Every structure is written in C-alpha cells, then in structure tokens.
C-alpha cells in the first residue's frame, strides 16, 4: 500500500532504534494510550527491540475493554427483543456480559448483525420500517463523528425506528485519571493519533503542563510508534514535558473542524463508567436533549440495568498501568482469551490477551536462530 508500507521499513526502524538506544540513560515507563498502538507494538515485536530500561504499559484505549459490564448487559437486553435489529462492529459480539454475549443472543434467535459503519445501520432502518434498528455506538472520539452523523441523518430522514446505544469515552480525562492516581508510574504518554485527527491538540497542552508529562501524538505504523517512543524518551532525558505531534500527516493542531462541529451539535459531556476503572468525571459523551429520542437506552428503558464487575478481575489496575497482567491472580488460570473474566482478555488489542499470547513462549531472541536459513 503506497505511503503506508513505507512506515514499516526495517532499515528506517533500525535507525530509530539506534537513536533510542543512544538516548536512554535511565529507566522510563511509557504508556501507549490506544489499543491500535498496542496491537502494532505486539504484532511487530517492538517491545522486545527496545532497551530493557524502557517499559511500555498498555493503556485504556481499547473501546472493547473499557465498555462497562452494565452497558454490555443493556445491549444484550435490547438485542434479544424480537422487534430489534441490533447492529454492532464485529469485535463487540464476543465481549462477555454478566451471563451472555451477543453471539449467544444471536444463536438464541436475536437479530444481531455486524456492520462496518453506523450509516449502514441507518440504511437498514430505512429498509425495515417495521423493525427497530439499534446501533451499538462504542468507542473513543475517533468513532464518535460517524455516530453523530448517523443520528443526524436518521433525524433528517425522519427514521423514527433508528436509535443508538451510546457509550462514548474520551481520552484526555482518562490520561488525567491515570496521571493523578497515587500509584501512577507512567513517565510519558503516546497519545492516540486518530483521536487527535478529530479533536486536535488543545486538550493535551494543559495536561502536559499541569502534570509534567510529555505527551506525544503518535500514529499506528511501526515507524510511527518508534518515532513516538524516540520523541518521548528524548523529552524525558532532556527534562521537558510538552505536547509533540509525531503524526502530522494525519493530525492538525485544530483537529477536524467539521467533525468537531458535528460532535458539538449532537453530544454533551457526561460522567462515564469505565470497565474495571470506575466512574471518571466528564469522561464521556451522551446525546444532547434534541437528540435524546435516538437514545436506545431511553427508548428501551434499559438504563436501570446495572451489573457488578468481577471481584477477581484486576482490569482496572492493568488498564491504568498499576500492575502487569501477569500479576493478576486470575491471569491465565480462570481468565484466558477463551473464557475471559474481564475485557482486556477479550480483545486482541487488550493488554491481558496480548500478554497471554506472549507468556506461552519465551520470546527472547536466541543467537543464531533467526533468519540464518533463508536468503
């Protein structure tokens, strides 16, 4: 893929790694906020290429992981209704609720469909006027504009049978919660590039300043991630703490004006519960009053459904970087990807699932084994 494959070029990666090794003089802990970055780090083995004194902590930026159990249960209750076509991105189907998941609801007769865009769900609503079409609107600032657009489109087309179960969460309040927590051991953050594509940089400047942490807006290809790490370590070694944009090909300082205007029109900030972490003040979005008619939680009266989180699951401590997944007593025993207790074990981008994959094999490089056999 032109202009993307280039961001995986091994020789350029080597140069960045050399520079990182030359920069680091003491141990540092960095958190990559976004699950997409975690995925890139694991799938390219970037964590093993860094100096041992640099630790990467996988942050809470996986929407599948932080969607609270109660909301999953609400989605299951709605999806089981006979009049409902429940639409979701594919990775939410396997997330366990208290007693079931969307796959099981579908097997038991619920009409659950995987879509690639909330606008596909709007089209379904238009094509099925006698059914209720509900879209599961999870995710960070990145997925919110499309959901806002879907809701506005449904309103403009008079589609009264369309609604969205909203669970939008926001990155800056999560960074703030982590950095102000007494156990925080994160020295710098790699901020989520695509969130900043939408929102811009202005919310991050005060965070970096107030808490003295470098925040590097970082992309998702291997070179992007390495460059983000290099810049973060450079700031830490120099004693700086500012916002740097390491993803300028996709992020402008002001963000995307049209998307921000749409978001401002449709959503307002609200307190949100994060799975495993608890409630963070003003850390999410809900529909503004003119759009509440499209709120599925209200339409189907499921907002009273609550659910206690597993007491054994330490997802909150993991997602905030307080402990490593392997330090959780349930890890790999009663909690595995095949039967997860908590969400970070569900998603391929989840920190626990990533560690589980690694733990099976000692991945330290053995001299003389790699690539000697092939020309």
């Amino acid at each position: 893929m032109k202009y993307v494959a280039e961001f995986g070029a091994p020789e350029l990666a080597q140069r960045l790694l050399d520079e990182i090794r030359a920069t680091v003089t003491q141990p540092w802990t960095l958190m990559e906020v976004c699950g997409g970055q975690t995925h890139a780090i694991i799938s390219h083995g970037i964590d093993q290429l860094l100096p041992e004194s640099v630790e990467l902590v996988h942050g809470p930026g996986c929407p599948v992981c932080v969607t609270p159990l109660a909301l999953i249960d609400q989605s299951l209750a709605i999806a089981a209704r006979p009049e409902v076509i429940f639409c979701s991105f594919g990775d939410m189907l396997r997330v366990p609720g208290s007693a079931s998941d969307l796959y099981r609801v579908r097997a038991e007769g619920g009409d659950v469909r995987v879509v690639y865009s909330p606008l596909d769900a709007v089209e379904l609503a238009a094509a099925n006027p006698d059914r209720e079409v509900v879209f599961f609107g999870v995710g960070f600032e990145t997925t919110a504009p499309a959901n806002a657009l879907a809701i506005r489109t449904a309103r403009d087309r008079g589609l009264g049978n369309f609604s969205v179960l909203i669970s939008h969460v926001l990155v800056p309040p999560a960074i703030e919660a982590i950095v102000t927590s007494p156990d925080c051991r994160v020295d710098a953050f790699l901020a989520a590039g695509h969130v900043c594509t939408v929102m811009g940089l202005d919310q991050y400047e005060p965070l970096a300043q107030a808490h003295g942490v470098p925040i590097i807006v970082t992309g998702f290809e291997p070179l992007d991630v390495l460059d983000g790490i290099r810049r973060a370590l450079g700031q830490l070694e120099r004693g700086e703490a500012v916002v740097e944009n390491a993803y300028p090909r996709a992020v402008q300082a002001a963000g995307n004006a049209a998307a921000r205007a749409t978001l401002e029109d449709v959503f307002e900030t609200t307190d949100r519960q994060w799975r495993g972490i608890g409630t963070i003040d003003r850390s999410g979005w809900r529909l503004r009053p003119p759009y509440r008619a499209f709120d599925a939680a209200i339409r189907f009266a499921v907002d009273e459904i609550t659910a206690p989180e597993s007491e054994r699951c330490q997802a909150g401590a993991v997602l905030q970087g307080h402990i490593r997944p392997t330090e959780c007593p349930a890890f790999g025993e009663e909690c595995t990807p095949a039967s997860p207790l908590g969400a970070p074990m569900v998603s391929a981008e989840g920190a626990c699932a990533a560690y589980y994959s690694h733990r099976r094999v000692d991945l330290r490089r053995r001299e003389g084994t790699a690539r000697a056999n092939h020309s």
Partner: protein
Amino acid sequence: MTDPSTWSCPLPLADQPVITMAHGGGGQRSADLVEHLFLPAFGPAAAGAALTDAAVVELGPGRVACTTDSYVVQPLFFPGGDIGTLAINGTVNDLAMVGARPRVLTTAFVLEEGLELAVLDRIARSMGRAAAAADVRLLAGDTKVIERSSGDGLYITTSGIGTVDPDITLEPAQIQPGDRILVSGPIGRHGVAVLSRREGLEFGTTIESDCAPLHDLVQTLLAGGTTTRALRDLTRGGLATALCELAETASVGIEFDEALVPVPEPVRAACGFLGLDPLVVANEGTMVAFVAPSDAEHALATMHAHHRGRGAAIIGEVVAENPGSVVARTALGGRRVVLRPLGEQLPRIC
C-alpha cells in the same frame, strides 16, 4: 445467468423456473432435476453416475483415502469461483493433502425452496468443469429441498475417495526439527474475495479467490523425489491456524519470517482497512508443505515450475524449542507468538 430455454432438454423444467418442495419429493420432479439439470451440467465427469442406490467402482489394489466436507459459503458466487467450484476443489484438496489421487466424488445438495433453477444450473456446470479439471468422477448424489428459510439458496456436501500409492505417507507425526516450511502461493485471496463481494467493499482492484485443485501440484512434488513429511491446505483460519494445528499435533515448534510470507498487495491493503491479519484469512487453493531441509530448495524449484506453485516460498522451519507454539519473526526483527483465531473472523467463507 444461463437461459433455461437453451438447456439440453428444457421442457420438463421450463415451467418451473425455481426450486419447489416437489423437487425434493423423490418423485417425477426430482428425477427431472437429475436428468435435465444435474447430469447435463456435470457433463463428462458424471458419465457412469449411479442412477441406482449406490455406485460401484473399481479402484485397484492398495489403500484408499476418504473425506467429506460441507459448503455453506455466502455469497454463492464470488470473484474467482462459486460454491460449486469450492465444493469440488475443497474435497479434492483434502484428499490431495494425504498424497491421494482423487478418483470419485459424491454430491449432496440441500436446496432452499425458491432457488432459481438457472442459479443451480450455473453452479452445477461449475462443478462439472471443476471435476473434469481435477480428473474426478461424480458418481452419486442426493437432493433435498427445505422450506424457504434463511435465503442462502443452497448447501452442498461432497465426499471423496482417492487412491494412495504404496510408498506415500504424509502425516504430521513425521515432522521433525530442521524441516523447512513452504507455502505454495500468495495467501489470503479467498477470504478477501468473499468478504469484498458479500459486503460490497471495493478495494480498487478485484481480488480473486485462489480456489483451485492442488492434487497435481502434490503429485508433481512427490514425483520429484522430495522428502515431504506433511501437507496441509490452508482453508478457514488461514496459514496461522494450519501452522498452529501442525505444531500441536506434531509437538514441535514452528518459526517463520513474516516478510517471506507472500501476501498480495491488494490483500494486504484490504486487511489493513478491515483490521484483519492476512495470516488468518481463508484460502482455498494454497497449501503448506513440510520437507526435509536438504530437499527444500529442490521442492521450491519443483513448485515454481508448476502453474499452481509459481508463487511458492520457503517461509520458515521446524524447531525443537517451544513445542506446540508458532513464532513469527517480524520484519523489524522482533518476534511474536502466532495464535489461531478463537472464533470466526469472517462468517461463512466456505
């Protein structure tokens, strides 16, 4: 779509352009379907097909291999093939992977009421052509009709019998540390072809399924004197699943270089767009071969000389460490454990 009026003997079917429950009743309509649709469409491959309760065939002395598989793909037609070619090639390839020469296939159809006969005819003709290309005979069959339900149209089950030469044994237990791992061609095409058609996704270029029979490539490889330990065709779950299964079954470790795995650029782009890993995307005409290290280059040259193996590559080797595990060496020089996907990545691909 085929015009029913051009069929060999259209009269008994022409007044019924769709499948009805009567076609599965075992009576005249069922017989019409066999005589006027299936047999003409299957063509020479069905010469000698049993119109009795069972076919009797002479296979000669020695061992036989047998296998069966059901095909439920949606959509029925996709770039590079259809459910019919899949049903023939999939079963042919299962036989080929144990070194068998595919000889005889049986076909069972579950048809949904309302399926257009023209669609069924087109699929049956694909099966006839695919069977002829794979040199297998279609000697027995069955048809049932179910009431209109899911809208899928039809499901096909094929069972196959092949003969295995006396000196051939291909099985995972023979895999040993040091063996080289070859993949016979570029991966990921079938899954992306089906997905792009089903979801109406366009990726600039049309990606065609790799759906194809592999028996001749296998026989050529074996005839070339290569010490081949085991073969596995890459189907659902892709290369990652095949390697994980073999590592577990043979209780060996597997390591490979990601950069050496042939992935067509459009597949890589589509996977990037959809968040899929090409290693777990389905294939229907691509296999991995485990061969003795001293024969690896010869095996590669043999594959390259065959039209089904032109894109072959040596991707890695079997190791003694970490038995049961598969490790990918990344292009950047890192390592990661490759796991088989837990559930479906893409529903209904074969």
